[in-house]
């Protein structure tokens, strides 16, 4: 890196907040999914030129201007988890936004929070719940940045059914564009506060992120407002013990109820979840499918192996959970009555084992808080995973096709012994978005990052699934494809767009050229300007 440029960055953030030490930079090179691009380790191919820790929007802006001046690329990350956070080439200045961690405001009256990039969902939710409010804590984990999810990268949640998709929960946004200009979206842009993302003031949420986000390739978001929702549960859900199935809620709330319906076939199952969405009774829906649930939720891998042996045959195949959270006993009774009517209509029955305390508590915590359970379920067994169908948003009818498809293809690959044997049933979902407006499902696939054949099996499976989806005229899920494309040095959008009805890249490229005239933002996961 040019020493003059480095000196300028050092002057901006102070010498304690910038480094180009190779060992320090390697901590920013080591990454989950690095195994897809590295040579047998989790170190990706590109070490940053330097890493800087800005603490204000002004510092971010100044660093971006330095990058523009010296022809450097930049990439920012908040909590920085996953291949998306890594540089896509050499000479990239990484901005670690960890010092921008202020929860600026929770506006109880207008029901929103204003956060900086390093506020994680778990922190925001804890503070919101104390005020009778709640937010969408995404399946990627409570450890992820609320702002990043809202502005830059898709993430779905069990509680999307009651609080919507975060693409639509983001309100006012402060955005440092790739050329260093600061843009304020929505009402913030006209000095009218954070209350809306669409004005009065510029409404560019679609350009900013669309469905999936630009994954750091389109500037740096420094503050945003996030919509909060009414929460009928208690201010805290205190628990005893810390490990997976051992954790117990202290005093399970009276106005919360967990039910696990199961069905004879997937069509009835899908109809039931759609009805549940439409009826607006659920706080959260979803479950790990039985293959994943038994492989990932033991208190250690040995216990998981036993659960896979003994429990998987006992759990019904077409099952999900629904968490009801009411403001009063009569409301809970109403919700239960509606659910029972739906089950009667769709032929659903209740799997009562899940209502036992040990299952009930851990699943309730999973559905409300996320906690460590999702990560444990997918990482502990083999050390790595990648979801196939990651980013598959479905309309009624297409979900069932995709679930069937992914399961069938995956089962073949599982039989090779190179992936974890979840019977093809490693799904997370089904999730309902916006009260039944859309559905979502992804099939988590567990592979060992230290076994090259296992990595290859994952890539082959993902490609085969995506090809099958394309042949059926179903959408190729973006986030699954990002990882496969990166492993081959390709751009995800370049591999997806040819299968779509329209080549959306021409629009993306125009946006990129307009917002990033010097091609300064690292766009390895978005679109190159040329």
């Amino acid at each position, binding site marked *: 890196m040019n020493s003059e440029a480095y000196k300028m960055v050092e002057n901006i953030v102070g010498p304690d907040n910038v480094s180009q030490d*190779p060992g320090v930079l390697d901590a920013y090179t080591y990454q989950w999914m690095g195994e897809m691009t590295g040579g047998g380790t989790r170190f990706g191919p590109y070490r940053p030129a330097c890493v800087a820790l800005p603490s204000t929007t002004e510092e971010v802006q100044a660093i971006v201007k330095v990058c523009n001046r010296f022809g450097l690329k930049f990439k920012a990350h908040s909590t920085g988890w996953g291949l998306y956070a890594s540089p896509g080439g050499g000479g990239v200045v990484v901005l670690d936004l960890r010092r921008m961690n202020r929860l600026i405001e929770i506006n109880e009256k207008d029901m929103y929070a204003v956060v900086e990039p390093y506020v994680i969902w778990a922190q925001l939710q804890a503070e919101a719940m104390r005020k009778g409010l709640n937010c969408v804590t995404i399946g990627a984990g409570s450890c992820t940045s609320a702002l990043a999810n809202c502005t830059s990268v898709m993430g779905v949640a069990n509680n999307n059914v009651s609080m919507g998709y975060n693409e639509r929960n983001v309100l006012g946004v402060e955005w440092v564009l790739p050329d260093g200009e600061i843009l304020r979206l929505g009402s913030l842009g006209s000095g009218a506060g954070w209350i809306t993302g669409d004005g009065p003031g510029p409404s560019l949420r679609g350009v900013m992120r669309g469905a999936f986000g630009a994954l750091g390739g389109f500037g740096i978001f420094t503050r945003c407002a996030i919509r909060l929702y009414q929460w009928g549960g208690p201010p805290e859900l205190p628990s005893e013990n810390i490990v997976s199935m051992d954790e117990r809620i202290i005093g399970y709330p009276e106005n919360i109820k967990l039910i696990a319906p199961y069905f004879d076939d997937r069509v009835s199952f899908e109809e039931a979840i759609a009805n549940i969405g439409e009826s607006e009774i659920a706080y959260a829906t979803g479950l790990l499918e039985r293959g994943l649930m038994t492989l990932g939720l033991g208190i*250690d891998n040995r216990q998981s192996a036993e659960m896979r042996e003994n429990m998987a045959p006992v759990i019904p195949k077409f099952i999900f959970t629904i968490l009801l959270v009411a403001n009063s006993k009569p409301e809970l009774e109403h919700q239960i009555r509606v659910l029972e009517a739906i089950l009667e209509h769709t032929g659903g029955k209740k799997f009562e084992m899940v209502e036992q305390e040990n299952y009930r508590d851990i699943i309730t915590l999973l559905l409300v808080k996320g906690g460590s359970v999702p990560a444990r379920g997918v990482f*502990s067994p083999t*050390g790595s995973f990648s979801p196939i169908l990651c980013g598959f948003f479905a309309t009624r009818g297409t979900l069932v096709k995709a679930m069937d498809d992914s399961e069938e293809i995956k089962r073949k690959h599982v039989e090779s012994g190179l992936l974890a044997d979840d019977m093809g049933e490693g799904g997370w979902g089904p999730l309902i978005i916006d009260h039944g407006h859309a559905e979502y499902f992804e099939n988590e696939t567990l592979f060992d990052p230290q076994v090259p054949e296992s990595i290859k099996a994952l890539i082959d499976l993902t490609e085969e699934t995506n090809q099958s989806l394309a042949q059926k005229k179903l959408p190729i899920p973006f986030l699954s494809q990002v990882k496969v494309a990166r492993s081959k040095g390709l751009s995800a959008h370049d591999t997806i767009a040819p299968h779509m009805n329209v080549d959306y890249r021409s629009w993306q490229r125009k946006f990129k050229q307009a917002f990033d005239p010097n091609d300064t933002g690292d766009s390895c996961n978005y679109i190159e300007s040329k």
Partner: protein
Amino acid sequence: MALQDYEKSMNYCIRCSHCKWIPFNKIKTKRFSANCPAISRYNFHSYSGGGRVAIAQSLFLGRSEMTDEIRETIYRCQLCGSCQVACHLIGEICEPLEIARELRIKCVEDGELLPEHMLMIDGMRKEDNPFGEPKARRGDWAEGLSLKNINTDKADVIFHAGCRFSYDADLRSIVRGAATLLLKAGVNVGIAGKEEACCGGRAFDVGYRGQMENYADDIISRIKAAGATKLVTPCADCYSAFMQFYPMIRKELDIEILHTTEYFARLIKEGKLKPRGGSSLRVTYHDPCHLGRLGEPYIPWNGTWKKVWGQLNIPDPPKQVRRGTGGVYEPPREILRSIPGIEFVEMERIREYSWCCGAGGGVREAYEDFSEWTALERIAEAKAVGADALVTTCGWCERNFKDALGKRNDDFKVYDITELLMGV
């Protein structure tokens, strides 16, 4: 063990950042949601548990070399173990705490030393304590207590005072009080007096494994000679060394090991000890890392990982997953609840996910400002729950808290649980 023994482990960090926070289901406020002093203070990812794993692997693979910045990063860590507790809620192969310790052992082997630590080790080599205080005065604290001398007499219980309690004049009433309570309860207790030596835990923490091995051998031979059935210590550091470090280096103490709080709680239940109580006080309890998560007994393992169900990794034979759940948490709380006049309230970060006092891992000796900052974070948490006083059960914690408060002329009270039992 050496860094190459963690070759597999180093590949299984998933870079999730769980190592930076307390378990998510336990977060009550944003203010007290962090678990790791190092990343909280220095911010670069390299300061986190996961970042240390990446540094270790980078050095191991020869991708980078030791620099001043990396050496600073390695030593600016209390080795409090909170990263590993959080990490092991997600997986079990990656062991960030053990890897962080191995990095220090490598530093010592490669001559990458800190002068402050060399001074500490020099004190141990000359006087068997990290302060370099005269060995001959080690037993002065017990003057006038009529405790047996285990070098010449038999006793059921060996009372191991530890370096901090033996030499810190401000803490003398605590160690004398603990011994007095045992005597009052009718326990046949003896001490090694000036022959008692350091447990070596502090040496191990800064990378001097061999130094601790010598002390382990010394204590093992002393226990054999004494014919005692129990080894009781008021020092959480020593407790952790006996329970965790010695088995880690395959040095087993063939005796029941108890922290004083465990023994006091037992004696209270048996009716042999009656908490006196004093004026009414609202207190909160600080779980010392070395008594809590690092006090969890270590079970050595020498096995392999095998595959079942395709690619599911399981250890063969079974391997302990260290999450701190086997630490000492309830006895101190039972004691506090039993003392008349004491109102006990919990802080937000407790038990396995307690925030560190800042004194461990050689940080107090080498990075005073960081050590103090860490202590003040904990004191702020104690104040936030409306406590009049912070109670702990570790001399190192108490010393660090008192020093941090003293520098700010803050008269917030810090007690050892023994003092409350004695009726402060």
